[in-house]
């Protein structure tokens, strides 16, 4: 084999090694970095469930008055107990956050660790009231 032949052989072997390295490298990237081979099934069912729960809660009657009316009338005393009647579909230990148009707010059975599940709007005497249904995590921080 002459010198040129040796040179070409080295180039061919180096190229083969490069090809193998490329294949290994890209395989690692696809397998490790891009593991989205499974099909992700997405539904809005959970979110909808909490919205339906909140709406039904606002329509619920307590002591002859609708919960929504109790919120508008700022009659908060019976609201806390009525929260216990909610099914545990969005978690447990429900609470309410009521945010008035002027930014002032009132929490009923809700704590800083609660998760906001769904929200609705009610008209108030001084502007709209945002009603947020919260749930769970009352054991954290020994707040119970």
């Amino acid at each position, binding site marked *: 084999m002459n010198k040129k032949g040796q040179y*070409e052989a080295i*180039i*061919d072997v180096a*190229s*083969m090694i*490069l*090809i193998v390295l*490329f*294949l290994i490298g*890209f395989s690692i*990237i*696809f397998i490790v*970095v*891009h593991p*989205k081979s499974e*099909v*992700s*099934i*997405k*539904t*809005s*069912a959970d*979110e*909808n469930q909490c*919205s*339906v729960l*909140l*709406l039904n809660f*606002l*329509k619920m009657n307590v002591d002859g008055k609708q919960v*929504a*009316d109790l919120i*508008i*009338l700022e009659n908060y005393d019976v609201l806390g107990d009525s929260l216990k009647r909610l099914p545990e579909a969005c978690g447990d230990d429900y609470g309410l956050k009521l945010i008035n148009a002027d930014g002032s707010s009132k929490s009923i059975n809700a704590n800083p660790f609660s998760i906001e599940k769904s929200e*609705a*709007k*009610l*008209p*108030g*005497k001084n502007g709209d009231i945002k009603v947020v249904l919260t749930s769970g995590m009352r054991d954290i921080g020994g707040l119970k």
Partner: protein
Amino acid sequence: MSRKGQIIGFMPLLAIFVLIILSFALYSFLVKSPDKDIGIIGDVQGSLIKDDTLLDTNLFYSEKKAELMIEKSLADLYAYHGFSDSACVVWNFNSLCEPDFEKSFVELFKKNSGFTDVKIENKILIIKFKEEVKKEINNVKYTYWKDVEIKKDVDFSKEKEIASKVKACSDNDFEKCLAGTGVSIGKDSSGSITFSMENNKKQLFFENTALEFSVDSSTTAII
């Protein structure tokens, strides 16, 4: 084929070709559309259900707003002595200041609530509006709407009866004309005759206020 004049051999060319192909694949799968390979099942249907709940929630809000604003508009109507604004104070029949309770109430309700298609028919307040959601998901465009009609009882027959009795009253004998209607008749500091009728409407959100009015007696008993 002779290898004379060949700048790069087969294997280096193959290596470059493999590199290009793999780079393109990497770009297509990871950089250009990393999420396109996620199968989304029932996204449009889920969104429709979500919008249906949203429209129901909005509808409930609108119903509550209507109830609240009916009471506020009643309170305003009584505060304005049966008129829709403060332009008229004294009941002056056969003029612009002749009270028309239903018309004034509808005007006040439209102003307070923001609803535009409002009318009273047979003692029922009818509010019509459209709730609508427009969306585009995964190249699917949809418009979801509900035509809504809210009906609430509003009865001004008592007020109308009093107004017609006052209007037809002759000799300014209002005590006799309004006997049995529950209207209190008195005199203010200037000596003018004043009338007061208790609010007979069921009210939840606003306190009851009495309808107080005075009448230009020169315009009564004119046929």
